[in-house]
């Protein structure tokens, strides 16, 4: 007994740490970790602290000002009104299309085309949509050519322009994420179901859907959060003083045009809180569904 105890105390601190996974190699994590804590975690906490130190009034004055002014408060609804329908539309199209593309042999051309708008970003898409959807753009001309409409639709500098930009960048994002989830489901599972006589619709609702729900919940959250932070296209393609005055415009305006960084930080915190509420709600709903392996063998 005493020998064992002596041996234990003999072991150096370094060795004991190494047994728990801390040694020289573990320290390599530090440079990157310090950088992210300094540039991401700390600024976020600083923003929270800054938002509670308003220019004048009580500690909650910024939040009170935001929620009591309808012009500011309504930006939350304006943003939700853009982000939720756009996310739902993107996901509703992404799922069936991903199921079809999964069977395609040469996916790379399609996926490469679809990755273009994500890579090029919203500013370029906004510039292109201003031409394309404008009253004399190709979109309206084609619709007039096939006699769907007789006068050009007004699709820029309003809600629909921003919505179009959210679909053009958001759909490929949702689609590629869904595709990676769908491809992760073992085809043997579907074949087993088909062998047992399940029709296409049954295979989808009873086999794929339950396996896909966790992935779809994550895809929904990521797509929604991106759409909720819409900024350049809401200014360039929308009506930034009217129906598309989204919450990020309000935050930017407060922080860098009114030079009230405390109020700007407060609006950024409200923005983060709304995103968090929606994400928690979606992930909470996900817990109601099946969770388990999507691979066929030894599952």
């Amino acid at each position: 007994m005493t020998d064992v105890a002596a041996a234990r105390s003999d072991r150096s601190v370094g060795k004991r740490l190494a047994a728990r996974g801390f040694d020289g190699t573990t320290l390599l994590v530090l440079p990157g970790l310090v950088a992210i804590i300094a540039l991401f975690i700390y600024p976020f906490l600083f923003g929270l602290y800054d938002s509670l130190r308003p220019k004048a009034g009580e500690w909650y004055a910024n939040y009170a000002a935001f929620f009591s002014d309808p012009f500011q408060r309504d930006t939350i609804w304006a943003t939700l009104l853009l982000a939720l329908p756009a996310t739902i539309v993107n996901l509703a199209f992404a799922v069936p299309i991903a199921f079809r593309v999964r069977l395609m042999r040469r996916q790379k051309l399609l996926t490469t085309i679809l990755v273009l708008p994500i890579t090029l970003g919203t500013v370029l898409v906004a510039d292109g949509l201003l031409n394309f959807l404008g009253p004399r753009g190709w979109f309206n001309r084609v619709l007039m050519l096939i006699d769907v409409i007789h006068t050009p639709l007004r699709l820029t500098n309003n809600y629909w322009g921003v919505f179009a930009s959210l679909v053009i960048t958001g759909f490929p994002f949702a689609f590629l994420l869904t595709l990676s989830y769908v491809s992760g489901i073992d085809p043997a599972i579907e074949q087993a179901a088909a062998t047992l006589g399940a029709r296409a619709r049954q295979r989808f609702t009873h086999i794929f859907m339950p396996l896909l729900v966790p992935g779809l919940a994550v895809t929904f959250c990521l797509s929604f959060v991106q759409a909720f932070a819409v900024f350049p296209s809401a200014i360039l393609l929308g009506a930034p003083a009217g129906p598309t005055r989204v919450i990020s415009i309000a935050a930017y305006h407060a922080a860098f045009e009114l030079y009230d960084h405390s109020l700007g930080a407060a609006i950024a915190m409200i923005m983060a809180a709304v995103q968090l509420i929606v994400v928690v709600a979606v992930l909470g709903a996900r817990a109601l569904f099946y969770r388990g392996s999507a691979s066929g063998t030894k599952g």
Partner: protein
Amino acid sequence: MIRDQGIGSRLWRFAIWAIVGLFVLNLVGVIASVIVDSFATRWLGTWLPAGWTVSWYADAWSQFQLGDVVQVTFEIAFCVVVISALLGVTTAYALARRDFAGKRLVILIFLLPLLVPPLTYGIPLATLLYQIGLGSTFWGVVLVNLVPSVPFVVLVMIPFIEQIDPRIEAAARVFGARTPSLFGRILLPLLIPGILSALLLVLVRTLAMFELTFLVSGPSTQTLVVALYYSVFASGVRAAQSIDAMAVVYMVTTLIWLVLALQFVSPTQIVARARPQN
């Protein structure tokens, strides 16, 4: 592969491909309208412009000082790529090789900047940088761009390093390799494909990163995409073709690197890498 041949599923299949076709057509239309307009002499109310010219490129190059802007853009992107490679690869190595208490928390910390949209954390971050005097400076722009880049490199590199057998390193140690030569002659050659693809994607993302650069950059530290935003924002001041010529310059500088990156990774991975890998 299972295919139903009923009329209903044929119609369904046709509808799906029709929607894909329509989407791609619109997407190509959006991009093509920028390219066509940049070569147009005059384009008002017709299907195609009245005539073709390349003079808008020279016009845009001198009016928007694109030479300077492109130079600054690549200087910033180069610094971001080098720093995020150094920080990201070392961190990823530690996370791939060691299991320690709090590792999940560390991974979560690296995941968050990729999941939270830039504008949400960008406003407090930019405020902070302006307060310590780094606002609108070159290094300020580099620092903000590190926030999404370092975690991106970390998360791309972790599975890459995990697949390298630790026994290779052990064998090198047995034969007397010291840490520098172990890294330089064993690990680096094995990791080069992964590092290269991660860095190319960081380069593409930095060139296209609008929100963070926009919040921090000043007049002399604008990247191409921010300069493009300002010119579209003030459209009417300059000819639309001139702005579109600049947009094409931006597109070309970004897409070159994307095409290179796609030699190493599939497009699905560009998006899907950002999700948790447990």
